[in-house]
């Protein structure tokens, strides 16, 4: 699978990254190298092997659903780039 400049533009869009033409020209061969190296897993007989998503068997970690103290509104908004003091503010999501 060859990673072209178009692949980079497509993936950047999926990842919500704006990339310059210069970035695209640099990233395409680099990602091609890296994915080319990773390609060595393709030829191996892995069909019967179960996947590992975590190093050890994990069990659901549950707790009682009881109210506990959390961040105050002021704390939660302290790092927001734009807020009206009660909620974060963002550019229009829907037009009109």
């Amino acid at each position: 699978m060859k990673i072209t400049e178009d692949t980079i533009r497509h993936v950047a869009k999926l990842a919500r990254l704006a990339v310059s033409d210069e970035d695209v020209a640099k990233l395409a061969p680099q990602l091609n190298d890296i994915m080319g190296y990773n390609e060595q897993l393709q030829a191996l007989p892995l069909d019967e092997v179960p996947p590992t998503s975590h190093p050890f068997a994990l069990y659901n970690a549950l707790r009682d659903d009881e109210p506990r103290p959390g961040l105050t509104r002021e704390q939660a908004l302290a790092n927001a780039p734009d807020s009206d003091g009660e909620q974060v503010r963002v550019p229009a999501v829907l037009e009109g």
Partner: protein
Amino acid sequence: MTIHSVKAILESLQKKETSPLDWVEASLAEIANKDGKVQAFLHVDAEGARQRAQALEGSGGLLGVPYALKDNLCTEGMPTTAASRILENYIPPYSATVANKLAAAGGVLVGKTNMDEFAMGSSTENSAFQKTRNPYHLDHVPGGSSGGSAAAVAAGMVPFALGSDTGGSIRQPASFCGVVGLKPTYGRVSRFGLIAFASSLDQIGPFTRTVEDAAYVLQAISGHDPLDSTSAPQPTEDFTAALTGDVKGLRIGVVTDFDMSGVDPEVKAAVDGAIAKLQAAGAEVVEIQLPHSQYAVATYYLIAPAEASSNLARYDGVRYGKRAAGETLLEMYERTRSEGFGIEVKRRIMIGTYALSSGYYDAYYLRAQKMRTLIRQDYEAAFEKCDVIVTPTAPTPAFRFGEKVDNPLQMYLNDVFTIPANLAGLPGISVPCGLTQSGLPIGLQMVGRAFDERTLLRAAHAYEQVRGFEMPAPEVNG
């Protein structure tokens, strides 16, 4: 006052020869004297550290010992940037569990250390803010991603520091900077408040000057945490009690099927010398095989970017961090992320997005997870025959700035010996085992069984006792 080991500081404090404030002042003086050149710290909280030292009470295990944290560990009220523009002005409203535990043990935080942005890198050159230099050779990298923590301990600015290790980010910089670096078993230390890179691989651990100090610090930071659902139920153990100095009968596994062609001859000689010393001290050397480890780097560079691409989706300019202006929400997201992330972070987000994207998931991510199973099973088989596995920590000593930065694949291959332990979730440690002709440190890696840090630390400590030399302090001034 020279900053050496945690143990020496604790002894001096217990005898009342010195006060916690004395050690904070000593640490700040070393930082003032050396950090202009080394550039290990992103943030030094001198006044806060003095106040914390004066307010200390109780009898914690690290009472009065100054330390530093990698800047991806959240500290309430103190900047935490992960060395990224996107978090340049971020001040967390809470602290990481490890920071709370160290504070409860009486440790005194003096500052936050430099790193590769979001812990992605092996040289700390990917920091958005500054280059950290190797205290042993200022035109060489300190390793990464926890390069600032490694350099701060190596240069004697703090007796210990914490880092995080996803594919070698504690052990490799420890190797490059001539200090001890311990990656505990996955789950041993709570990740709550660690800015996530790859959640199934990340683990927090200490940089120290001695193995005994690493045991002290591990004791203080380990244990189950209800705030991290992946933290293990295993109770904290008395790790220092395991350091008997005795390796008689301990089985040291030497891997016979690793490709050693990329290993620097001086590194190989130093590691062989270390194995011989362990053998002379009574350890038994056993040959073992890890046949699937040759695929570890490829496996890692699918799994880690995939997890990163999902973890880093949260940086969208809405609730915290940088925001770039945009007419629409989508434009705001794209501009924020493009201006906020450096090139290596973008590269990894894109690899991960690609590997997880429609039509490729089975071919890449799922196959990598299957290979992860085989790599883990190799270790299980090997640990039937041995108690710890010994390899070089990194194939080379510290390299020069710029040497690998434009060739990401070369940079990734530097992690060939450290990555397998992350994939298998096993504890690993790097201990200095020599210096090259040109004065660069070399690290010996030992990997142990899951949750058997006691045996791992015992082996590493015993090696330290028979090593036959002390790491010379690097000369950094002005």
